[in-house]
């Protein structure tokens, strides 16, 4: 017989939040960027999304089955991984690149550590870095975006950041004159699927902020740090260093700052720690972009700061109520 009454400790009510609601909020926030990327990169983009989603779902379910854990592919977290993974690779990627990426993200990035909530590194970035190092050609085969149904063939093209780095190495100075701020803002530039449209990403980011899924701390400090640091270098020598607006609009910064550095599981949990995390991400990103071998450093910076997260948490634990000195209290 089923017992009539339930007993638990208090509280006996709960707000409407749940893991799936949090996860699907992120999925919804990603939709504008997904639509823009499909518009600019065409059917190949759509196919990459579909392959990514299908393979992530399969790997997640299989890994959970093998590891004897309950299968939770419905909770939405795997959808985020799948969409973000697709967003992190170029539209020209062969199908197997996506599948390998999914395998790395789901198994090596997440399930090996115990599944959702236990992974120390952002699974998508683990996959992106691994693919970038293992398959540099495929991972940088950028093409010029061609609006859907426009009937034009796509032409290969470097990303603004890659272009800048190459010219800097060849000529010793940079040239951003052919660079259109408007194009990058709406997403009409070369790059990985999801990183190009700053506008669409911002729309999603604002939605997440309004839903209280993320807080302002990490995106604001991350983008702010990149802006400030690149600004300092630009003021020092504008011929070698691009202006800060160029830096915050280009590359994967928006995608990283709004959707990947804010991943709850792998970023600090306390507000003070989030500030440190954002600043750290910003510094590393700028260092790699300006002085490193790679044109882009968002993924590396976030992964490095992920590694520092437990330490940051440890030193930013908030002070408890009433931990102040008595005399002050009794004023």
């Amino acid at each position, binding site marked *: 017989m089923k017992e009539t*009454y339930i007993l638990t400790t208090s*509280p006996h009510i709960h707000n409407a*939040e749940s893991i799936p609601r949090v996860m699907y909020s992120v999925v919804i926030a990603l939709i504008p960027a997904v639509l823009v990327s499909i518009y600019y990169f065409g059917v190949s983009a759509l196919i990459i999304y579909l392959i990514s989603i299908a393979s992530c779902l399969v790997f997640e379910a299989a890994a959970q089955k093998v590891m004897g854990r309950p299968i939770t592919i419905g909770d939405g977290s795997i959808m985020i991984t799948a969409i973000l993974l697709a967003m992190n690779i170029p539209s020209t990627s062969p199908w197997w690149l996506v599948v390998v990426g999914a395998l790395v993200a789901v198994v090596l990035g997440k399930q090996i550590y115990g599944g*959702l909530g236990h992974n120390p590194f952002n699974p998508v970035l683990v996959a992106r870095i691994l693919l970038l190092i293992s398959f540099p050609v495929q991972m940088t085969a950028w093409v010029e975006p061609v609006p859907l149904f426009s009937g034009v063939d796509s032409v290969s093209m470097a990303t603004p950041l890659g272009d800048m780095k190459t010219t800097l190495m060849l000529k010793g100075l940079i040239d951003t004159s052919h660079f259109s701020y408007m194009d990058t803002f709406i997403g009409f530039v070369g790059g990985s699927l999801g990183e190009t449209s700053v506008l669409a990403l911002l729309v999603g980011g604002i939605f997440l902020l309004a839903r209280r899924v993320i807080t302002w701390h990490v995106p604001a400090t991350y983008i702010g740090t990149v802006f400030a640091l690149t600004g300092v270098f630009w003021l020092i020598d504008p011929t070698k260093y691009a202006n800060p607006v160029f830096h915050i609009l280009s590359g994967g910064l928006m995608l990283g700052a709004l959707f990947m550095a804010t991943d709850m*599981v792998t970023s600090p949990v306390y507000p003070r720690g989030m500030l440190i995390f954002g600043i750290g991400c910003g510094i590393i990103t700028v260092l790699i972009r300006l002085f490193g071998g790679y044109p882009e450093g968002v993924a590396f910076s976030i992964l490095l700061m992920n590694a520092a997260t437990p330490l940051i948490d440890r030193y930013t634990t908030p002070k408890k109520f009433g931990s102040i000195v008595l005399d002050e*209290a009794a004023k």
Partner: protein
Amino acid sequence: MASDTIKTYRFRGGVHPPEEKLTKSIPVRTMPMPDKVFIPLSQHLGAPAKPIVSPGDRVTVGTKIADAGGFVSAPVHSSISGVVKGIVDYPHPAGRNLPAVEIEGDGTDQRDGAVKPRSNPMDLDPGQIKEIIREAGLVGMGGATFPTHVKLSPPEGKPIDTLIINGAECEPYLTADHRLMLDAPDHIVTGAELMGKILGVRRIIIAVEKNKMDAVAALKKAVLGGDTAVVALAVKYPQGAEKQLIKALLDRSVPSGGLPMDVKVVVQNVGTANAVYEAVAENRPLVSRYCSVTGPGIKNPANLVLRIGTPVSKVIEYCGGLTQDVRKVILGGPMMGIAVWDFSVPVMKGTSGILALTEEYLDENREGPCLRCGNCVRVCPMGLTPLMFARHTQLGAFDRAEEFNVMDCIECGCCAYECPAHIPLVHLAKYAKAEIQARRRKAQG
């Protein structure tokens, strides 16, 4: 001092659960006298009371049936007139059977002959008032049930400058204090002044949440002058928690492990203030209380005056019974109340509400993995990190949980209310606290 001049502050954290005050405009009714009551000897924090009646004894309303079992304890009085059947082991909200005095009523509702009103309560000296309060069996009626006379006896060297009367009633659903403030504002004010006299305090603040402006108005009308102020506070749970209330009203932080008296404050519930008035002016011991019988699972929600010792099942019956789909019955509010399964448990001095929740109001979700979203940290009014002590408690590392200040947890429920992973954070906190206390006792021998 006019209330408008009092500045209020914010305490950190807190949540805004739906208020659901279904019974806020239903006037209080007195439930007819039950034919039998079971009056538990443990209705307060501290030592159980010692029975002083034997089977067969005749008692009337207000007859003392058990005396305080120590300094931190309170006497217990009969709530009906009739005959003592015995001292029995009877179901108690704590989940065990505990000794209770069983009294069979004779239906006459006869009052104790010694119960005569006093015409001049304010002329009594503080010692006399305190003795009357002690004898009347008064305990904190907000739910914590700490004996009132103990709270009114701060040790030497702990001066008190402010008495706060807590009418926040921040728990969803509950409206008993609200109705009491509307019905007896003058009693509350006089009761507060009597307590102020014991403490030697001039400044008295009556704090009410802004969702009860009618009660604020009634209380303001009842305040005759002096340093008594009525303050309307923002609606935020747990506004009525002692430490948070003091922070919001006076911007003083009770130190960790400390008591309100460490910051020169004593906090008493409005129900207690009313009971002080009744005990001192009307010479009536604590034998009944206001209680909200509410929730989606109660057929006819009501605010009732209930006699201590009335079985909850009788109260529910009087309110038309439970609906079919009730899955949980709670004594107190939904954030901090105790769920019970055996409805023969009696109404006690601290029972501020009887709440019946149906399936749809309950948390259907099962526990998931911690996402480290930080909601629990954001809402914790004590500035704790529930995710950390919860994780260590789950691993059985109670000493680590203690390092994350689990002992400072006030079990308000904000963290568990907000947790998207539905981790039973309060349960883990209670569990860790119980284990740590057991270890401390063991270490002491």
